[in-house]
């Protein structure tokens, strides 16, 4: 193996050309695949943006009016206000219903449950729940809440905002649980040991050390889950949400319309004028989504701990 050995003699029987070609071909495919996703997203955004620009500058739809008025039979009087308020109420009750139950489940599974078959069964079911189509949750709530008789008034409960929140809460519960579990798992065991060795009970350890350390991650996951919920249409339609939000709901037991159902209604109308309202509605919804995601990313980066 002296320096003078001919390269051909050394490696002549190794032919990498074909392998390298396969590698390059696969790399090309992967780049194209990831480019496709970006391209589709840009196309979507471009389409919505161009319609929104046309709506504001060509059709002269006032943005202020759009945001302060509510649904109307007449496109030039219709606005998004009641739908935005409806969605805000929905999110409030969705998060109230799902956060504590979801985080409680995650804490139990990660911090207390013995690692046995029962725990694995629960976790497998959570994974399955995350895959259930959202419309199914709508049907469930229709049967389990909306169609019940209110024992006080003797009337049917009806399509109240609370019922919509229950459907959305069930829908995002598995997401919250799994992301909270991840956040809890990211807290190193040395923290738990340190706390227990100082004479803390398991609950004190969870309450004072583990949860505070995991909270930013839990909140990030919850916000992302809510961002998923705020755009859901099918379960709300199943529950009986108003497609036209003419007035903002006044509380959890009022009937309601929300942003996605309003957009769906406008886009479904034959009159072109309503389609521009739908485009503006989508822009508002997307801006809210981007704001939520940005908050989540900010939280994650700001409070990330290096142990």
């Amino acid at each position: 193996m002296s320096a003078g050995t001919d390269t051909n003699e050394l490696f002549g029987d190794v032919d990498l050309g074909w392998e390298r070609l396969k590698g390059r071909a696969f790399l090309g495919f992967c780049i194209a695949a990831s480019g496709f996703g970006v391209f589709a997203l840009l196309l979507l955004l471009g389409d919505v943006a161009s319609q929104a620009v046309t709506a504001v500058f060509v059709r002269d739809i006032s943005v202020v009016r759009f945001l302060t008025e509510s649904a109307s039979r007449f496109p030039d009087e219709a606005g998004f206000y009641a739908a935005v308020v409806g969605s805000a109420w929905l999110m409030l009750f969705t998060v109230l219903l799902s956060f504590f139950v979801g985080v409680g489940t995650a804490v139990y599974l990660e911090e207390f449950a013995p690692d046995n078959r029962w725990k694995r069964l629960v976790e497998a079911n959570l994974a399955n729940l995350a895959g259930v189509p959202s419309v199914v949750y709508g049907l469930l709530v229709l049967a389990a809440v909306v169609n019940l008789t209110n024992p006080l008034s003797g009337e049917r409960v009806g399509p109240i905002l609370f019922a919509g929140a229950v459907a959305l809460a069930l829908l995002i519960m598995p997401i919250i649980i799994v992301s909270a579990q991840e956040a809890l798992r990211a807290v190193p065991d040395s923290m738990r040991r340190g706390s227990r060795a100082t004479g803390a009970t398991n609950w004190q350890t969870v309450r004072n050390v583990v949860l505070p350390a995991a909270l930013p991650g839990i909140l990030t996951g919850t916000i992302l889950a809510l961002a998923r919920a705020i755009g859901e249409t099918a379960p709300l339609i199943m529950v009986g949400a108003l497609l036209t939000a003419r007035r903002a709901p006044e509380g959890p037991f009022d009937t309601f319309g929300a942003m996605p159902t309003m957009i769906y209604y406008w886009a479904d109308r034959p009159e072109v004028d309503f389609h521009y309202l739908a485009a503006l509605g989508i822009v508002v919804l997307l801006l809210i989504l981007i704001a939520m995601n940005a908050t989540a990313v900010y939280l994650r980066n700001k409070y990330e701990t290096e142990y």
Partner: protein
Amino acid sequence: MSETELEIDVDREEDADEETTSDEIAVETRDLSVWYGEDRALQDIDMKVPENKVTAMIGPSGCGKSTFLRCINRMNDRIDTCRVEGEVRFRGKNVYDDDVDPVALRRRIGMVFQKPNPFPKSIRENVAYGLKIQNKTDNLDESVETALRRAALWDEVKDQLDSSGLDLSGGQQQRLCIARAIAPDPEVILMDEPASALDPVATSQIEDLIEELARDYTVMVVTHNMQQAARISDKTAVFLTGGELVEFDDTKKIFENPDDQRVEDYITGKFG
């Protein structure tokens, strides 16, 4: 580091010798055996740990030193495969008795780990942690200061008590963990290779601190560094592979004139 230093410390040890005989026993193990599943990690350990002394546990890695330490405050309880037989007596009471609550036990036997593990909280909150969970919140600031002084950290951090404990250097973090362990005023402090992750300067600070702590506490320290054991401890227990306690005696005796040939081999082998 040097032989002379070793001698000096052994000399210091001599004064204490007279007292040792009449000493109170803080922790005593009787026939203590531990299994992880089928594997036996400790074999019938009998040991009497004197009060207000530094007791060192040395031996090659994997010989069960950490396991032994974890038995004393029952930190092994959480390990599913771990099975303990025999007794660990703390002030005469077997800590594995059914009526002993491990949480209560750990409030009297503190622990410091190999890798510093301060909480992602302020320095003040770290030290106050044990006091708060044990409802010892009278004069909290005072107790925090006392603990930090005892841990020889006060002067370095007194102006930044509200900054994160994670921002300190490794050696400072470890002293913070010591402050956290001693703040609620336990009787025994267990230390598992508390200086092995630290640089030489931080190590010698921790060593000084350990000797200091023995005035107020019973200190049990695991180390794989024999010179360290010789420098800081009054009593030394030598464990050898298989989880056997080969010899337990005054540090001076262990290092100068051990009974067991294997101990001599182990010690001289390491010194070269």
